[in-house]
């Protein structure tokens, strides 16, 4: 309690160790209680790098409830170069308004990066999600710049092997599977300390039965 007067005399811009700084642009609820309670949801206006340990462990599904919420907005949800067909019956069942979803395919990595950047800059997307396995550091910086100060959910998925590569993204999310549980590690997030092992254990179960 004695530290209280000292804290109040410190200038506002001095970082206070453990204290978590909230994302100025807000968060979109992730739809998972564990995530929403610990980190408020997915941050807006901050680029997220999502690294799945492998394909098919619900790595895309972690964003779906947030996308469902964002699709109520009049803006687009832009999916750039998804590896397979984003299956409309699934999205629709999860409450995503598929009329807001646009899918783009690009011939090369530059076009894919350009697509994401246009989406982020355009002010007409509520979410821009890309699958660009060979994304470059330069491209990430461009995307972050385009996203800065915009109320947009921006994320890209990388290949499982890029876990060890240190990309300049403000947020990194690792999705892994352990004993029928999907776990999320956040080794890096702007304004906060790393978190590991957030369990969204019943994710697969929930996907099986649909969200309430």
């Amino acid at each position, binding site marked *: 309690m004695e530290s209280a007067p000292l804290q109040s005399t410190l200038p506002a811009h001095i970082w206070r160790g453990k204290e978590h700084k909230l994302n100025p642009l807000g968060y979109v609820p992730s739809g998972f209680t564990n995530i929403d309670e610990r980190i408020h949801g997915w941050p807006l206006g901050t680029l997220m790098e999502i690294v*799945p340990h*492998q*394909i*098919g*462990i*619900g*790595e*895309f*599904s972690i964003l*779906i409830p947030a996308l469902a919420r964002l699709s109520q907005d*009049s*803006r*687009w949800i*832009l999916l750039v170069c*998804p*590896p*397979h*067909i*984003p*299956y*409309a*019956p*699934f*999205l*629709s*069942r999860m409450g995503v*308004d*598929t*009329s*807001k*979803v*646009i*899918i*783009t*395919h*690009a*011939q090369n990595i530059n*076009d894919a990066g*350009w*697509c994401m950047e*246009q*989406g982020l800059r*355009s*002010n*007409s*997307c509520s979410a821009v999600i890309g699958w660009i396995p060979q994304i470059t550091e330069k491209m990430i910086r461009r995307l972050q710049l385009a996203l800065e100060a915009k109320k947009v959910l921006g994320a890209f998925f990388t290949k499982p092997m890029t876990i060890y590569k240190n990309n300049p993204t403000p947020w990194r999310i690792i999705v892994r*599977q352990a004993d*029928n549980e999907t776990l999320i590690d956040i080794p890096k997030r702007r304004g906060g300390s790393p978190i590991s092992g957030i369990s969204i254990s019943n994710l*697969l179960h929930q*996907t*099986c*039965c*649909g969200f309430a």
Partner: protein
Amino acid sequence: MLWLCLSFPNLPIDIFSIGEETKEPVVIIESTNTIIASNNTSQHFGIKNGMTLSAAYVLSNFIQIKHRNKNQEIKKLEEVAISLFKYSSQISIRLPSSVLVEIGASIKLFRSTQHLTNQIAKTITDLGLHAHTALSPTPLGAIWLSLYRTDTTAFTINDLSQYIDPLPTSIIESGNTSGMQLHDVGIKTIGQLARIPRSAVTQRWGTYALDQLDRAFGKKPDPQRPFSLPEHFNSEISLNLPASSVEEILFGIHRIIQSMTAYLQVKQRGVTQFELSLINEKKLQHDFKFKLSVPSRNPKNLTHLVQERLNRESIPSRIESVHLRSVQEIAITPSSHSLLPHEEQNELSRGHLIDQLQARLGEKSVYGITVCADHRPEKSWGETIPGNHQQHIKLNHRPSWLLRIPKALTSASDIPHLRGPLTIIDGPERIETGWWDDQDIKRDYFIALTQDHSQVWIYKDTTSNHWFLHGIFA
């Protein structure tokens, strides 16, 4: 009434010198091989209008010759007229090279004559033209003054005579058909002509000269034929030098798009379909058709679209001119300041994003998705145009990724393998028939887990007993 006349004595050459001034001497000739216009560099060499081509060759060996293009000159004047509609509703084109604008009614709106004429001058400069201007209460007076005494301002009829009187009578003679010229009998200025008894003039030269004089001084009505907008925008510009890359023609494209947007502004319309043609030296034409999802008249956006598209496709080499036509236009109501100004803006930028992406990636690479009423997995979704509204259909549990082509799996003693044997956790869900469109299926779908805990959607074709991977629960 106060008429502003904009005359373009250099029009024959102005229509060619789009872009920066060339270093080479350029001359425009008519059918008789006489020079009718030339650029600054040629004038520096001493080449003058009215010279024959052979005389000009004596002065410089490197002359670039272009033939006069009267059609395009008229087009250019129309373009000027279109861009001036924001200042006045009464505009008429006077061939060969003048545009008349009645600005008397607009002065109050633009606060002062000076302010208004300055704005008009800026509009003209933006079009890449140099105008000689004059103001007069009569249209003919304005034309004469703009040709012979540029920058003259006469506000009343009484002011007019002091400016017009010293003008040479050759102005009138251009329309005179009778043999004897006024100039030849010693009547050198308009003032002198006005002082001669009227009967004497008509006796010798007919009524034409006096008729012109009366119109110029406002003694006779001089109605002007108003310029009206064409049904569609259709314009062409010639490039200064043949161009082979997108960067080189971009300047011209930007300018022609600006003209189109000025036209659309006046018509209060937005373009949804337009065609761009690039014409090369051999007069071969390459057409590019553009379709927009929302009507637009924003020059920046349109130029961007064209640029992306041209970057993607191959363009012919040595392009000489650019042609732009609007094919379909839709009325855009001018934006009103609503309580929620973002809504409309949003709708526009939503459509613009699609157009932009399609321009670069191709129409087929940008699409929306929808749920279809069909029980077969590959037919229960479909590609649509972005923003198409979805049907409400009761749905079963489905994976987030569907493979476009099911992947055949190996199996050992009827246990499917994908990175090792799969463990079935849910199923079967039988999906079959489709006899009505010859795509009959007979499948049992299962949800299965791989050894490394990936969840997949697989099926067993019950006719062939083969296993396939059809979806991934990503």
